[in-house]
């Protein structure tokens, strides 16, 4: 069954949007619709659309995947399969700033682990988690190609190189006020 109004299609409980899901907001749904309208004509558009949604909305929840599957006329398992395959796509919202620690060879040898320990101490959350005030998300990431500036960290789309544990807090303070002993 296909329907122009996706809500009339019976869906599993896990796919029903919570109140804070982007699908539940008319404004964000319009944003998603605009992305679909712009890119769906391209062959192989699913990756392009998911990349855009991840960039603009910040995550791709299960209800959003269901919505996309309906709109693009592809099976939900295809959308889910692609979302879970690529590490850039997240199903949960990230914080305002994404802190990505490069775990490439040079950064690993150059002390990336120490830096992560320190960041976890400053922000009080573990790698992969978001701070309770939703300001920062700590994530590992693949080589940023800034090996001569190891250890490197990408915050949002800005690269910070040659970090040291004792000076890392000053880097973070460029983004948000942080209270720390």
């Amino acid at each position, binding site marked *: 069954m296909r329907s122009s109004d996706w809500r009339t299609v019976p869906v599993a409980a896990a796919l029903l949007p919570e109140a804070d899901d982007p699908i539940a907001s008319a404004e964000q749904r319009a944003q998603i619709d605009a992305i679909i309208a712009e890119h769906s004509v391209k*062959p192989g558009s699913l990756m*392009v659309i998911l990349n855009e949604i991840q960039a603009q909305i910040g995550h791709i929840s299960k209800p959003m995947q269901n919505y996309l599957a309906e709109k693009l006329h592809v099976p939900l398992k295809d959308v889910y399969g692609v979302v879970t395959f690529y590490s850039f796509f997240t199903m949960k919202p990230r914080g305002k700033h994404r802190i990505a620690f490069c775990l490439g*060879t*040079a950064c690993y040898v150059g002390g990336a682990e120490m830096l992560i*320990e320190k960041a976890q101490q400053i922000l009080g959350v573990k790698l992969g988690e978001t701070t309770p005030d939703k300001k920062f998300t700590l994530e590992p990431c693949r080589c940023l*190609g800034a*090996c*001569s500036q190891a250890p490197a960290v990408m915050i949002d789309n800005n690269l910070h190189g040659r970090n040291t544990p004792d000076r890392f807090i000053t880097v973070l303070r460029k983004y948000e006020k942080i209270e720390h002993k």
Partner: protein
Amino acid sequence: MPVTSLEDLKAIKEQALAQRAERRADARNDRSVSEIRPPTPKEVRVILARCGVIDPEDIRDYIAEDGYVALMKALTTMTPRQVIDEVLKSGLRGRGGAGFPAGKKWEFAAAQKSDVKYMICNADEGDPGAFMNRSVLENDPHSVLEGMIIAGYSFGAHQGYVYCRAEYPIAVQRVRLAINQARELGFLGKNILGTGFDFDIELRIGAGAFVCGEETALMASIEGRRGEPRPRPPFPAVAGLWGKPTIINNVETLANVGNIIRNGAEWFAQFGTEKSRGTKTFTLAGDVVRTGLIEVPLGITLGEVVYEIAGGIKDGKKFKAIQTGGPMGGCIPEHLLETPLDYESLGAVGSIMGSGGLVVMDEGTCMVDIARFFMDFIQDESCGKCVPCRIGTRRILEILERICAGEGEEGDIEQLERLSKYILAGSLCGLGQGAPNPILTTIKHFRDEYEAHIKEKRCPAKVCKKLIHYRILDTCPGCMVCARNCPSGAITGEKQKVHHIDPNLCQSCGICMSVCKFDAIVVE
């Protein structure tokens, strides 16, 4: 105004050169300046010749350095067959790592009868420790586009894709800009340079999957699917993207094409060795005095790179190993430093050329830990399609983690070698086939370190956390910096009194030692 003749190009060149001083004043590419040093005597700059010289965000500055002259030459004075012959004659081999002759690939695709063919630029440079493609894309994006258009012309493609990884936001932005500018001047689109040849390029962005650097996985990703490799044959040149003949070349391979067409095959072949022609960019990282991007003629020895170009090991420490070819490469010890950097020689010592990342490690690096690090990477990035790679790499990782934790057993080394053999034999793509390299080379050259971990429960390089502990010496002046920085609160002590580390709370992270300004903390 679209460019249609050599005169148009010359006019743009003269105008751009005249305006260059003015444009230089606003230095937009300071990121490149910090990375690309002036060449040392052993280096030859061909691919990097324009990097850091031109403004990558202005196509006219590329034309000022004779950009798009090669495209003009190929499209107006050469037949597609002549283009292929020239590239064949130059001896250019794939710079993505496998080293397949580029001209031969194009020849295969040209022989296919199909009205639709595709040209793909593989800009999914994922090897940790490699950033030469990023540098070229960020500092000289048009050289790659020019190579793509010429390649497309040679075998009859009319649509190209640049598949760039998402970790490189600046490269993505500059390539996008470059495509738009090339379209405005008529180097892309319909009837290029008035020759009747149509070709356009679309930029596609990855989403953080290392395996997408493998050509069949990359095509699956462009098609909007999970990036899982498939068996070959059929090779992409026969049935690739959407089942059509497709050529996939690395960024650097394509960046060479313009130079070959403009200067001729003989000019290119003067660099390098008999079987490995030309120059190659490498990235130097790790414990050397000068890290960064270099470009050398193929055939230069590893020793020359480490000691003459990189200036040797920093802080007066001793050389231990050089890792080439990324996570699927191998670790090469000191006695093999005479190995020339070319495709065959690196293969002979159990490593690979890969895309060209060189990581130098000093005596403070634990080779078992490095093997564990690479296996952690490969295990995480294995797409899961082939069972030996999916499960074998996990089993290897578990054994290595045990060894690093001081729980290694007799027979572990033999088990690692056995698993490596099965993974090598039973995997479809380069990721699985290369996965055992770091294990096998470290076992071969640094077996004593494995044995120290397993038999003596000792990490000779003092790296493996479970096998070391930190201690504060009596010379500690009590500055409290270590206590403030300890993430687990294991350090106690009063101001101006000797501090103490609680071994039960200490996680052996080493931050205290790195922040101590008095060398009062030791690792044992």
